């Protein structure tokens, strides 16, 4: 067996970090050699949980012999850690949204290109089995030419740094657009040409957008909407997210529900109804792909450029909401 791929975690600020670290420990070809988090207590807790080492300085991970790092910081800091990791010659997977500005995204992609390291964007929805199947069917021509897509990514209101625009770059729109915009670009192979968005803080007293409705036009002639709203009630909704696509083609309609494979539990002691997702775990296969990209020296399924293109649609949505009109793509900055 080849030498395992050595991975370090940079930050658990995004809760997906725990899922990814767990996946690394479950993949035989990978080894979780160190974790860093800005808060030593939490960092140590994570190290204990995943039976690995806590290092109090992320530079120490970059100076170590890890092959790759997984960055799950707040959105603003993606750029700082990505560029530092690239300069240290480490392969990188960055949590979504890839970036909160086009200039930042370009600096990240540029630094990785220059350093010759692999740059992956954590788009687990590409690894959700219903979405993979949807892409396969669309590309096989099953529904003819794609004319329109209706997409949603709803969720609960995450709080914390997610609702501090200085750290997150916005609210629900920057948080949720990219899962769906990436799927749309990936599935259709088209380029987005225009974005219109309505958004507002309507549901929670948080001062950032918690309802977002985007309309995207593509160079193929197709159009789409993306609903990013944090509309699932935090206490009572039985599952955190939905990621749903309905694709209208000249010869038929496909719908894919990434979290459709669930069963319900009704627990008297917690007074909770829970929808338990039992489908294939997208997070595991996402990390598996990143490990494979390093081990086999190939591109990851979703690259930094993919992350940048998906982010561009979210960034354009904010520009559209400010301007009150559609914004043409590509964004100059």
């Amino acid at each position, binding site marked *: 067996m080849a030498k395992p791929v050595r991975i370090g975690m940079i930050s658990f600020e995004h809760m997906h970090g725990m899922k990814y670290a767990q996946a690394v420990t479950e993949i035989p070809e990978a080894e979780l050699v160190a974790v860093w988090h800005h808060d030593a207590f939490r960092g140590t807790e994570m190290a204990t949980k995943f039976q690995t080492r806590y290092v109090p300085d992320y530079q120490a991970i970059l100076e170590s012999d890890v092959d790759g790092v997984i960055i799950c910081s707040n959105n603003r800091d993606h750029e700082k850690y990505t560029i530092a990791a690239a300069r240290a010659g480490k392969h990188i997977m960055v949590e979504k949204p890839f970036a909160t500005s086009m200039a930042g995204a370009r600096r990240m992609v540029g630094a990785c290109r220059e350093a010759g390291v692999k740059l992956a964007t954590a788009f687990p929805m590409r690894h959700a089995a219903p979405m993979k199947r949807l892409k396969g069917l669309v590309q096989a021509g099953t529904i003819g030419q794609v004319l329109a897509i209706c997409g949603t990514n709803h969720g609960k209101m995450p709080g914390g740094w997610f609702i501090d625009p200085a750290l997150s770059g916005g609210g629900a729109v920057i948080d949720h657009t990219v899962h769906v915009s990436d799927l749309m670009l990936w599935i259709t192979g088209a380029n987005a040409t225009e974005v*219109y968005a309505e958004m507002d803080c*309507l*549901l929670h007293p948080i001062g950032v957008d918690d309802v977002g409705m985007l309309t995207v036009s593509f160079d193929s002639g197709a159009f789409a*909407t993306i609903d990013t709203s944090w509309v699932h009630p935090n206490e009572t909704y039985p599952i955190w997210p939905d990621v749903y696509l309905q694709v*209208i083609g000249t010869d038929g309609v496909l719908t894919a529900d990434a979290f459709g494979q669930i069963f319900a539990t009704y627990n008297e002691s917690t007074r909770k109804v829970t929808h338990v997702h039992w489908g294939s775990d997208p997070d595991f296969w996402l990390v598996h792909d990143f490990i494979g990209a390093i081990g086999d020296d190939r591109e990851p399924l979703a690259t930094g450029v993919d992350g940048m293109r998906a982010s561009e649609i979210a960034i354009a949505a904010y520009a559209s909401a400010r301007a009150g009109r559609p914004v043409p793509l590509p964004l100059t900055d």
Partner: protein
Amino acid sequence: MIRVGIIGAGLMGRVHAAAYTHIPDSVLTAVADIRPEAASALAALSGAAVYTDGHELIRSGKVDVVDVALPTYLHKEYVLAAAAAGKHVFCEKPLALSLPDAREMIAACDQAGVKFMVGHVVRFFPEYAKLRQLAKAGEVGTPKFARTSRGGAFPAHGWQNWFADPAKSGGPLVDLVIHDFDWLRWVFGPVARVFAKSLTGRQLPNMDYCLTTVRFASGALAHVEGSWAAPAGAPFLTAVEIGGTGGLMEYRSQQAVGLRKTVKTPDHPIANAVPESPLQEDPYMLELRHFIHCVATGAQPLVTGQEALESLKVALAAAESARTGLPVEVNAHG
């Protein structure tokens, strides 16, 4: 006993004719259609008189109420004639294809002093009525967010395929999701602006699809999906979500099935399961019973011409947005 004449013996005419048989205060006395066999089939339900010209029905002296169940582009001619003859008027939705036409129809009924109601029947669907009632009662706090979805296969049953001609039907923004625009206005109040995309005008045979973002004057946001895009035979589905400061309500017709029928037939050994949501009282009957009650008592109908006009404004603004690619203020044109 209120005597009703139906003009138009297509799908809606048939649904209405059946409904009147369950309304004790009304009797179907006349049916008109340029296809005499279609008119006769409906008339047979109650021994009604048959006409091949709607104007003859209006002049016949056999009706107190005229139920206009014609394709949309023919509404105005018969509503104006019925009002001029002093008949109360029930008109299928959408009211008209333009605001001037709609206003002319409303004015004619006002001047004639007759009752006028438009068939925004979704307000009489119990699930939609209950969702609104709960939203108004604070079930989700202050309602601020909605998604609606409506559609399935293209309505190929239309006479001369009139649904396929946007000049006659307005396309799905004006014909189909106007149901949701009307219901959403009933829940959320006036609409400020809309942004819409549709396939209307792309020359796709018997196919259309539309997506609209609605911004209400209150600030609330809604997303409205309308589909005539599924293959023939696909089920007609609706869905609603209403979110607010204190919760969320979700409805999906697909999950609200009271009875599922799967029957072997010699031709189709693998039968399609047909879902049904049976109700003791059909929403179309509730709608028409309400109108007959208004005619009998002088009460104001739930969906007046003016209400239907406001919903038409939203639909026409959405159609304009889809054409121009720009957001459209709903009251920009008065």
